[in-house]
């Protein structure tokens, strides 16, 4: 076999580049809203390793708070919580799944972030999950301030918010970056890292399942951690409906169903949505 010459390889590279340049410009003929209603089923892209938002239980079933939120949306569309198909991906697989149209919308501990919102649209947040630090008890770390020493290592997830917060709250701590929450957790469990940062419900879930080895530090990192539904950008009809649905969950007619799901996964009521209601 002869060596590939530059002349042979170059066209392939050029085609790849042109393809990339043309993708975001692909025209959108019809709103996803109509596609979904015609299909009679909602296709949702999600993660599978972020308990209690989206994970597989002992029976191998995909469950979690975000999964139930997607089922609530399916109920609103089709009066049936099972008219939904989940597409499981890793964290970085969420965006192409939406852009390629493989899924109608996505959930899964997904935080709204300005850089991301250029490429995909977000609804208003359906939960402010908060970010906590989970530490191994062996490490002797008792506060977020303790953690800020160069003898400690923290396990991050490969998203920009994690890197931002590490710089802000514990700039001296060494950082390891993983591509799944499961690997983050394993890093603390195996002693690779002394601590990890993750959405508060996930941290509490893991601490509750490993009471001998791990605990959640008091206090939160940062003010809010807004998790929204994400979808293809530029589809006003579909975005407006989903955003309305989220608004109805958090402050409107679906508040009872939303509260029920919230209570099921987090063991407490969602924060009051009206300032004059005492919880």
């Amino acid at each position, binding site marked *: 076999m002869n*060596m*590939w010459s530059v002349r042979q*390889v170059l066209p392939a*590279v050029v085609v*790849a*580049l042109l393809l*990339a*340049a043309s*993708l*975001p410009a692909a025209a959108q003929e019809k709103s996803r809203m109509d596609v979904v209603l015609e299909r009679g089923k909602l296709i949702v892209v999600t993660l599978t390793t972020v308990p209690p938002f989206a994970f597989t239980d002992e029976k191998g079933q995909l469950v979690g708070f975000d999964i139930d939120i997607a089922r609530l949306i399916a109920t609103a569309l089709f009066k049936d919580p099972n008219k939904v198909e989940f597409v499981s991906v890793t*964290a*970085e*697989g969420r*965006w*192409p799944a939406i*852009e390629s149209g493989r899924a109608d919308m996505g959930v899964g501990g997904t935080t709204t*972030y300005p*850089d*991301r*919102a*250029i*490429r*995909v649209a977000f609804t208003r947040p359906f939960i402010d999950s908060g970010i906590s630090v989970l530490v191994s008890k062996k490490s002797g770390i008792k506060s977020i301030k303790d953690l800020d020493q160069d003898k400690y290592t923290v*396990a991050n997830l*490969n*998203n*920009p918010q994690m890197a931002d917060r590490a710089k802000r709250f514990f700039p001296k701590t060494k950082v*390891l*970056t*993983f*591509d799944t929450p499961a*690997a983050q957790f*394993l*890093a603390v469990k*195996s*002693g*690779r890292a002394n601590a990890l940062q993750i959405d508060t419900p996930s941290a509490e879930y893991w601490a509750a399942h490993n009471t001998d080895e791990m605990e959640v530090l008091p206090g939160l990192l940062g003010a809010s951690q807004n998790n929204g539904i994400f979808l293809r950008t530029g589809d006003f009809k579909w975005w407006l409906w989903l955003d309305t649905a989220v608004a109805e969950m958090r402050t409107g007619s679906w508040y009872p169903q939303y509260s029920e799901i919230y209570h099921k996964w987090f063991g407490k009521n969602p924060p009051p949505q009206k300032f004059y209601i005492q919880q």
Partner: protein
Amino acid sequence: MSFTRWVSIYGPTYATALVWTAITALAAACGAIVWGCVLLLIRLSAGRWGARVVDGYVQLFRNTPVLLPIYLIYFAFPLIGLPWPAVVCGTLALILQNGAYVSEILRGSVNAIDRVQFDAARSIGLAPWSTFRKIVLPQVLVYSIPALGNQIVLLLKDTSLLSAISITELTMQAKLLTEQTGAAYEAFIVVAVLYLLLVSGTEVAFRVTHRAVRWL
């Protein structure tokens, strides 16, 4: 944001990642070839049981995905008091698996050596170790260059799995940028082009080497 604009903003951030991919691939390639030679030596010199042990080792690593030793060494070694850095763990896992493949490649080349040479070596009084070092190994390595080239290309692509254990090589960099900007196509097309260049460079290096020593 157009593709070219995206690349002009985020392209430079791949530089360090490219260096990590190149370093781990190079270290693992050298290690795998040396380890493969050692396995070959054991197979040839340690009798039937030596050959069986090497066979078992080769079976074990050839029939399991390389991600398993990567995870196992990185996450399990700290439990037995060996918290080696991620780069060491990852490179070691690649060496262990690719060494198994390399030893099989070299074994194939040993079979291509005329048996008469072994008789000749013994008749002029060469000890087994000298025979291996002066007669067998040089020929085996030269015969094996094309096949080794293929294996090293596979190894180079397998370095992408090191992203699973917190090494920021090319694939991890693409994941990080995808998570930051949501631009998955851009991030991974850049990585594809960089891998293509690295692999093409490796292929050229092996072809040139093979051409240079083929007459031996």
